[in-house]
């Protein structure tokens, strides 16, 4: 083999490896979609159908129309309320805090940053009982606020640690110039610094939403009334408790994943950015 054909061979070889790895990684998702389009007997067929033989939406229709068991459409509304509120609160609080931590000489700054680092390490079970007590005693147990606040404790430390690096990368002179031009700190923050850190702020929007959307346990623990449950808690409860048919479980799964995939397609760049910041939960 000459050097050139050898090079050609390796080029093709690596592309084949790359495609195979990609297909293996995507297979579980493909399988979920594929099985949601099958009937229950097609799912248990031997040998298995790798493609749905007669693709149909029956599983979706049954699952969506079975309102007594679990009202899915309504649960999407709950998911949106919980994740949008999580997003709004955590973006506002963490944008301000990360600017403050990046720009000012605050006493105990390192301690505060350390607190946010530590709170990222807390296991979820750790906060369940104490937060349950707090929510009960201030009367927001069994309201949307309980899972919203709990989700914020996950989203805020991530956003602060990630955003601080964005604010640190803006030269201090920019801030000083704004102050000399007659802005106060708050104006300079809103009009100069926030636009300059906009990429980071969008990352924080996207991840706060995703944290809020992905939560199942907080809503299960802090909300008693199943009509207020988000999609994730619903799918856990329906699949676990009723042991529904797999085709319907997969249809439910596809519906639950759809908003996330949509966000991914629109926001891929920011998701990559957030992951690469190394401040994210994995």
């Amino acid at each position, binding site marked *: 083999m000459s050097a050139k054909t050898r090079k050609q061979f390796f080029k093709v070889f690596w592309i084949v490896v*790359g495609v195979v790895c990609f297909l293996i990684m995507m297979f579980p*998702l493909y399988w979920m979609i594929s099985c949601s389009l099958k009937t229950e007997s097609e799912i248990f067929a031997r040998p298995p159908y790798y493609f749905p033989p007669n693709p149909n939406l029956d599983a979706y229709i049954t699952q969506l129309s079975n309102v007594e068991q679990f009202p899915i459409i309504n649960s999407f509304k709950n998911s949106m309320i919980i994740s949008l509120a999580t997003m709004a609160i955590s973006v506002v609080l963490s944008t301000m805090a990360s600017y403050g931590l990046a720009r000012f*000489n605050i006493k105990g700054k390192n301690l505060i940053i350390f607190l946010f680092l530590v709170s990222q390490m807390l296991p979820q079970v750790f906060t369940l009982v104490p937060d349950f007590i707090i929510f009960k005693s201030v009367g927001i147990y069994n309201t949307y606020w309980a899972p919203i606040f709990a989700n*914020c404790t996950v989203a805020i430390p991530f956003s602060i640690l990630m955003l601080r690096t964005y604010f640190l990368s803006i030269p201090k002179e920019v801030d000083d110039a704004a102050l000399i031009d007659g802005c106060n700190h708050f104006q300079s923050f809103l009009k100069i610094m926030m636009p300059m850190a906009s990429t980071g702020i969008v990352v924080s929007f996207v991840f706060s939403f995703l944290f809020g959307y*992905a939560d199942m346990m907080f809503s299960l623990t802090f909300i008693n009334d199943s009509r207020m449950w988000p999609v994730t808690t619903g799918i856990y409860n329906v699949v676990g408790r009723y042991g529904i048919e797999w085709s319907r479980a997969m249809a439910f799964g596809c519906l639950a994943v759809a908003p996330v995939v949509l966000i991914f397609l629109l926001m891929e760049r920011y998701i990559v950015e957030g992951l690469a910041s*190394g401040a994210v939960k994995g």
Partner: protein
Amino acid sequence: MPKRKQKLKSDTIGYWFVLPALLFMSLFIVYPLIYNFVLSFQKVDVMTLMAPHKEWVGFQNYANVMNGTYLWGSMKNTFVFTIGCIAFQFSIGFLLAVLYTQKCKALKPISGLLLISYIIPGTVCSILFKFMFATNGGIVNELFIQLGLITQPIEWLTRPDMAMWSVIIANTWTGIPFNMILLVSGLVNIPLEVYESATIDGANGAQQFFKITVPLLKSSIQTVLVLGFVYTFKCFELIYVMTTGGPVYSTELMSIYSYRRSFMEFNFSEGAAIANILFIILFAVGLFYTKLIGKDEVA
């Protein structure tokens, strides 16, 4: 003198920016820290949870937990799970990172789609893998039978010796993109000329990987491994939905054990004691990490 005053003033303003988030986190994070600490020294069950006065029992809860078999079993499971997940997701993530940034760049755009496995809600992921690992009709068994690897279906989720593999595989799948992306962001900074000149000097692929790629990625690798450890060690929802720690406690991690004591058996004090032990381990690893990155992080 005026300059100093200006500085003082601006620092006071800094507090106002940080204060809202700090208050919020103090209420929902610092308070739970203290609460769990106190709770683990009291005797609290479902009757006394909301009562104003609780019986103080000292180290009794810790002694109970440590004298039982479940703590050590769950600790072993947690380490097996964590090390298993990290070994797979790090090596596969590394492989994919090298593949899509160096070996076949043409595929880089589509490789972004792999991130979806990371961002889909954990609950959905667990149910999906529960389905794929089902003894009857699960695609894993069907595929293995078709390939002739096995003749009888494996009871993945109901056999204690196989269940751990199932949850490790499921968690690995969601964790790979995290490893891949962090390593990619390090890899793109290595100029390809370095490899070209190494090839001219006669270095083979393995030598290039271990002598160039690995040393230049040292800080990315450290970050991936330590963060991966922390987040895998406290993994909860995925296992809760897939196996709830079963069968026969074979996938019961410390987080699941703590949850079981608190929310299924209503012994909140022992649940808190277990959560504290789990947290201390994580905290030690976290301290080690902040020391590691400390020089450039806390500026």
